[in-house]
């Protein structure tokens, strides 16, 4: 099980948290990995100065923009399953 957490605080919301969440929900469904990925939200990770939306994968920190979600999902999430 891979734990993916997306920050939905004010700053990240303005940088596109909503698109990131929706894109991730879509990709999880499309790849049929709902049982392997635990997607959750967090209020403010204390890294508002980053350029993108703050996301953690099993505790490891990333900053991604809505355009980067697809690549990010393939590289950092799908690769960690099994």
């Amino acid at each position: 099980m891979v734990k993916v957490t997306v920050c939905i605080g004010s700053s990240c919301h303005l940088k596109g948290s909503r698109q990131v969440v929706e894109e991730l929900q879509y990709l999880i469904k499309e790849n049929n990995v709902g049982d392997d990925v635990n997607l959750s939200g967090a209020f403010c990770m204390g890294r508002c100065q980053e350029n993108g939306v703050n996301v953690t994968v099993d505790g490891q920190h990333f900053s991604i923009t809505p355009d980067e979600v697809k690549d990010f999902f393939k590289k950092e999430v799908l690769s960690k399953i099994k």
Partner: protein
Amino acid sequence: MSLFVDFGYTSLNHFGEELCGDKVEYAKNGDYVTLVLADGLGSGVKANILSTLTSKILCTMVSNNVSINECLETMVASLPVCKERGLAYSTFTVIHLNHSGDGFLFEFDNPQAIYIHDGKCLDLNRKKLLISGKEVYQSELKLKDNDYIVTMSDGAIHAGIGATLNFGWEREDIKKYLESIYDSKLSAKAMATQLAKSCNDLYLDKPGDDTTIAAIKIRKSLNVHIMVGPPVEKEKDDYYVARFLDGADKTIVCGGTSSTIVARYLKKPIEVDLNYLEADVPPTGKIEGIDLVTEGVLTLRRLLELSEQYLSIVDLSPKIFVRQDGATRLADLLFVQASDVVFFVGQSINAAHQGLPIDITMKLKLVESLANNLKKMGKNVIVNYD
């Protein structure tokens, strides 16, 4: 036990008129709340001047405990006489009530007020008085928790006359309608707006008379504490959170950092719901022991819009809040449920927010406007800056 007097009103303007000839005035003085609904002769500017003078004079004098005889003498002496009709005339209903539910009601030429007790519409016992040549009716008020009084200008009982209804909307039918929409959770404003909306429907959106509904409701007090933003002195976080939690019936935390501080103090996790119920309002969170956890500035901005709409005297949308996004849930807690609201506003600056539309000045402005609007709703509001 102390009760809270909730009030609200909604007006329809005579079709084609910019000004309403009905006017509601409201004042709080010590333990007493005074509400006056006046309907000036005619419509438009003239009616507006008459009802404005009448409501303002009566409300100011009654709330300062001047006898009704003296109030009426002043009113009769002050109203300008209409050139065409040779009359100076405005109807009125005066409600003067304390926080135990005791007080009185005076009526002159407005439709008789409707008293709602336990969901049933009743008539108050009225005593006829002759003051300054006017027949004024007096009723003693002894209201209980969850009682309403609904007053209206004659535009309500004339609704639909000659169009959808032969004789207008009779008072008995208005009573039946109020019983049908009754729900003890409805605020006075919601009750008034819903009745006004139905009058507007009967008028087919073109009111033939100025129509105003004003309602008061007496209910239990509810003290809501709301924390917005982290305090400047970081090392005293625990002190501020303890003070925020102390003595509240319901607690709300707005903002990511604030939630983190509160969750740490309570030693509970924050759960975040990822469902976006409204596109422009971020999702809410959950902390055990806190009634509502939301994002900060963006949610508050939407809440301010909702408060403007709630206060509008011409907006006919239902004044109930059922959606589950953060801003709507805040509106239900603050506009409908709360009687007292205490803000705990932290002024710590998040450097990453500066320059964005979510910075500290924006937050402070929003809180100030919200506090003002809550006061206009009749709430007791305190704002603490930390």
